[in-house]
């Protein structure tokens, strides 16, 4: 690269993405982004051509979920940009690093209501960590470097770059900015990484003094790649651990200290352990309303240690006793060190054996449960998940859509490793799983990727199975088909007096034919005897995507459940366990 190399904006864009080590991007071309698709022909970057721009966004998210690297999506202006709003918002809510490139009408046409013009940066401002409209081709390399820096540092998130067509067509003098230039260009962006030493010592003291501690892990543990450090801390102090929906896999489910997922559909043990704790050590967690239930009665006796890289999360919902801003892995490592020092100096840990036996007692009394299906009746969705779980190859990546099937997947799966769970937590985006699974598989071609989907979700984004087939990205989809918008139906049954309004998806398409039409293998399972063979067949097919439709019980509900706005003390247990409620004291 000579000092005075002249490139078009489009060439500069693609070269910048290559220099950011982008190996795959997901997208769909159109008018304004056309110039960028030309240099892509001779680029090392693999482009996955989607069938709908929303799919490109969720694929980029799936890629980012399992790798920790930013997922990249590129689409055109106007309707393509608005189709990208949902994935951007999803990534923003779940702190997923993502870089999105959108085309824009030429700078001379901006503001004239030109064909396929929309105010992309205006529309996406509140659903991105940052966005920029690039008005000069010379600015492209720095903007790309800034985008990747912002997306991946601090609290990760999506960044959008809007590139007008003439900016892509005009020429520029190539210059790749140095790290210093990037930092200088962002004087207001200096995320805190290192935790405050005094707060870290304070946290260590509280952890040692606590008689009823709980480690409350959120998605930040995974973002910070802190799982090993957290495990060391938990094992050092024998502290019970709960993993939120975004943290499934951050701590092994089969570990003796793991009590599963807390929250609206968490395990009775995880919910109650948090309620009765005298110390919650929140690591990369944000006290989401789905976890806390009614905030005023949430964990009333607990002191709070809150480790989060985003200062704005400190005190947003619950005032912490010990706030620590910074990188979760570095801070937990420091806490471990501080605990060891205190122990070496003669401080002793409070006796937590009574607490642990109490928590273990709940775990014994309130295991996850469901009623087995009657002979001849439809399958139980939980049964299907157990079968899928037990037959899944080691290191299978599990992806879910949003709704009942997502909760059952999170509850009944056995997560052993980080980055094996991909779902839409904060935004709750139906239709997430098919494209996200494709993105995950593109990132980890050696891994088996199973998506658990509902019939409602599947019908929102299943056209991306064509993408999977044509690109040779072979995923496995399990549809738990109850012919209902199941979670909505559950709420209407429980909270609207069984007045079912617009939730019946009867007349659903033939999913087997649908799968076959898209070049996939389609399998239907209607009775328990068919399950094992169907799953075995699905697991054995590696040259095509597979869709397995399980016809499941229509009226099955997810338990436990904390009704919206209720206190976690009033968790509704599975009906067969309600009589034992007193044990939760």
């Amino acid at each position, binding site marked *: 690269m000579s000092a005075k190399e002249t490139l078009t904006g489009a060439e500069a864009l693609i070269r910048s993405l290559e220099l950011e080590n982008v190996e795959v991007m997901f997208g769909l071309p159109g008018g304004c982004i056309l110039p960028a698709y030309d240099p892509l022909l001779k680029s090392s970057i693999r482009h996955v051509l989607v069938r709908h721009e929303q799919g490109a966004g969720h694929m980029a998210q799936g890629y980012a979920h399992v790798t920790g690297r930013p997922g990249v999506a590129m689409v055109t202006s106007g309707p393509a940009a608005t189709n990208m709003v949902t994935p951007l918002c999803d990534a923003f809510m779940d702190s997923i690093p993502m870089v999105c490139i959108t085309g824009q009408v030429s700078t001379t046409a901006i503001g004239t209501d030109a064909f396929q013009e929309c105010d992309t*940066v*205006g529309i996406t*401002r*509140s659903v991105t*960590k*940052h966005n920029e*409209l690039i*008005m000069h081709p010379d600015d492209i390399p720095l903007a790309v470097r800034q985008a990747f820096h*912002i997306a991946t540092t*601090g*609290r990760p998130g999506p960044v959008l770059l809007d590139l007008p067509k003439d900016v892509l067509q005009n020429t520029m003098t190539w210059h790749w900015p140095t790290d210093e230039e990037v930092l200088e260009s*962002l*004087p*207001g*962006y*200096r*995320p*805190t990484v290192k935790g405050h030493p005094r707060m870290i010592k304070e946290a260590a003291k509280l952890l040692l003094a606590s008689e009823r501690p709980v480690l409350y892990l959120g998605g930040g543990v995974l973002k910070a790649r802190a799982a090993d450090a957290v495990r060391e801390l938990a094992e050092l102090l024998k502290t019970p651990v709960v993993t939120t929906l975004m943290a499934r896999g951050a701590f092994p489910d089969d570990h003796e200290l793991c009590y599963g997922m807390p929250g609206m559909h968490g395990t009775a043990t995880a919910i109650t352990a948090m309620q009765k704790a005298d110390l919650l050590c929140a690591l990369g967690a944000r006290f989401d309303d789905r976890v806390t239930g009614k905030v005023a009665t949430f964990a009333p006796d607990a002191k709070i240690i809150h480790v989060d*890289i*985003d*200062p*704005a999360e*400190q*005190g*947003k919902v619950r005032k912490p006793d010990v706030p620590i*801003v910074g990188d979760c892995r570095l801070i937990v490592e420091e806490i471990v060190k501080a605990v060891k020092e205190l122990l070496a100096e003669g401080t002793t840990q409070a006796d937590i054996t009574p607490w642990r036996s109490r928590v273990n007692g709940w775990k014994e009394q309130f295991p996850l449960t469901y009623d087995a299906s009657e002979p001849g009746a439809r399958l139980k969705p939980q049964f299907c998940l157990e079968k899928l779980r037990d037959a899944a190859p080691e290191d299978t990546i599990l992806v879910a859509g949003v709704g009942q099937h997502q909760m059952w997947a999170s509850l009944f799966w056995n997560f052993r490793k980080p980055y094996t769970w991909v779902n839409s937590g904060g935004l709750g985006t139906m239709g997430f799983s098919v494209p996200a699974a494709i993105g995950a598989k593109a990132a980890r071609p050696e891994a088996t990727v199973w998506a658990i989907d509902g019939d409602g979700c599947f019908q929102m984004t299943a056209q991306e199975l064509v993408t999977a087939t044509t690109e040779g990205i072979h995923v496995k989809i399990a549809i738990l088909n109850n012919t209902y918008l199941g979670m909505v139906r559950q709420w209407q049954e429980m909270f609207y007096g069984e007045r079912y309004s617009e939730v019946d998806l009867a007349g659903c398409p033939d999913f087997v034919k649908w799968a076959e039409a898209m070049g996939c293998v389609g399998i239907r399972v209607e009775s328990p005897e068919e399950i094992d063979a169907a799953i075995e067949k699905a697991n054995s097919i590696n040259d095509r995507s597979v869709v397995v439709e399980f016809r499941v019980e229509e009226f099955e509900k997810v338990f436990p459940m904390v009704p919206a706005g209720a206190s976690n003390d009033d968790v509704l247990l599975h009906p067969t366990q309600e009589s034992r409620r007193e044990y939760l004291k």
Partner: protein
Amino acid sequence: MTINANNPYGDSRNHHILSVLVQNRPGVLARVAGLFARRGYNIFSLAVAPTEDDDYSRITIVVDISATPLEQIVKQLFKLIDVVRITELDPKKSVERELMVVTVRADGENRGQVVELANIFEAKVLAVGADAMTISLDGNPEKLDDFEDLLKGYGIVESQRTGRVALPKLDREARPRTLKGKAS
């Protein structure tokens, strides 16, 4: 974001002044305004202008802290990449200035009284019409409130205020709390 019309300038218990130094880039005001709108924070007034350095602008925001703690507003503002520095100005420890331009009815017998009032407040008469005059007044916002109140009796045709700008007082206690680079 709502602009509190009943009590446009709040009282010092409910309002706080944030002096926000931002990179002078397109859309930065929209980012700040959008944040207030999206998170439901209330503002009393907002003024924006370039600073002595072309690369930066200063946005002076009078925020209503009766509904949202100031700390949360400041932290959320810091998350905007273009926000470089936020200085909290306690109204009691800062000098505030605002400009008002007002057209008031001033016919025949009233004209002399309006001019007299303007003189007392050291306001300037900018334009005189047959039955009205336009007056400008700058000063601290409370002084503007008083002047506006007194003019109401004559009939205000139109008035426009700029929103306040502020800097810390220069006495020994007036160390502004400057919060830097904690964005995430």
